[in-house]
């Protein structure tokens, strides 16, 4: 016969090791002998109290009991959480790279370099993140917006200035980046456009 302390130890181990919430019925199955639902409930309450003041708490959800981190600790955990963090799509990253390295640029410039149209969601994702904004408008038909990166962008990437962006000399030399974008990529046939991501909108949302 297990003592209440031993039962509590088993309950704690089971709940910590379970990826999903466990019900009282689940927890009763842990034991050979009959352990009453009321007893389990009382021990779970004791367990919850014993975890007060820790970074992890025992909570009672609709689907059962589970241990979870306290929200206040999230800011620490996300720095180390080795789970794959969400990633921006290629469309977002390429657009950001173009804005960072070639600013100020219009959406048209970005489309010329990328060879595909840039979905509004891509620009919006970067604006919402506070990494780019409209710095001016080009004196051209339609007065298109010129985008540049923000101070928050530099802060978030740990850079003091744009000069600290990784240099690109190795590849840049092989392509005339100074030339007007029209020279770079007037893609007209379907072949090369087919290689490029066509679903910018979905990609942006994949973030």
């Amino acid at each position, binding site marked *: 016969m297990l003592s209440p302390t031993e039962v509590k130890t088993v309950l704690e181990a089971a709940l910590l090791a379970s990826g999903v919430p466990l019900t009282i019925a689940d927890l009763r199955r842990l034991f050979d002998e009959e352990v009453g639902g009321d007893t389990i409930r009382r021990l779970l309450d004791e367990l919850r109290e014993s975890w007060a003041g820790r970074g992890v708490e025992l909570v009672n959800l609709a689907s059962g009991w589970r241990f*979870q981190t306290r929200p206040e600790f999230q800011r620490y955990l996300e720095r180390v959480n080795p789970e794959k963090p969400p990633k921006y799509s290629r469309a977002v990253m390429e657009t950001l790279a173009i804005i960072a390295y070639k600013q100020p640029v219009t959406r048209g410039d970005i489309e010329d370099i990328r060879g595909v149209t840039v979905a509004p969601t891509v620009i919006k994702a970067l604006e919402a993140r506070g990494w780019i904004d409209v710095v001016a408008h080009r004196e051209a038909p339609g007065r298109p917006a010129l985008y540049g990166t923000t101070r928050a962008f530099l802060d978030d990437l740990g850079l003091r200035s744009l000069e600290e962006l*990784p240099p690109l000399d190795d590849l840049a030399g092989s392509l005339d980046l100074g030339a007007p974008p029209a020279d*770079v990529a007037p893609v007209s046939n379907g072949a090369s456009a087919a290689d490029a991501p066509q679903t910018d909108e979905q990609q942006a949302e994949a973030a």
Partner: protein
Amino acid sequence: MSLALVHDADAPQTPPTAKVRGEPLAELPQDLYIPPDALEVFLEAFEGPLDLLLYLIRKANVDVLDIPMADLTRQYLEYVEVMRRKNLELAAEYLVMAAMLMEIKSRMLLPRPKPLGDEEVEDPRAELVRRLLEYERIKAGALRLDELPQHGRDVFSVEVWVEQAIAKRLPQVCAEDLAAAWRGLLNQARVRQHHRVTREELSVREHMSVMLRTLQDGAFREFQELFDPAKGVPVLVVTFLALLELARESLIEVTQSEPFAPIYVKRAGEADHIEAG
């Protein structure tokens, strides 16, 4: 001491080596009937000839370092013979081992040459003993590894739910990611450039269309007919490139009956692969 052919009734249920230690040597008549199914299971419990030999040695409780070769060899061959007779699939390794045992046995029968000086005479069994001990060590090592608490079997990692009530996790980007994205772009641009080569690409495709239109009736045209020298060298070059591109894309057929004979060009097939204009 003799090594008996032993078939415990319960051998099929447990690997024979597990039964060895502390058990009295059970001698059974050699003509004992063994149900073929049972024998098969029994023999399948062995991982190979070394495993079988170790079993025989341990079962007979003899010293690995002083193996009675005659008994062991006879015993081993009996097993191999049973396997063969029952048409069990007999791995080649068992036969190789049989040959090796007989060779050692025969060498043991020969008078030992007197040691010359300090030179030590190698026991014919030395290599076999070394291999048996090595295998036995590994067998034990395997058991010990299996005894260690194993993640996913005996222990499980703790991974409590991370409550994310405060803020949505945002993708992290570092400067190097950005550089990588840019390089990716440049590579794409270069690939596109490779395919396009120059701005002339457009006019090449334009000339391809013109040429296809010229060849629309499906008739043979002489090669020279397709060129208009009056339009200047660049156009001649572009026209020629268009011709080559069309040939590469199998949109036209270029034929010549013999060297220096006139070259003829004809549209291939009927399908219109290139949109005019």
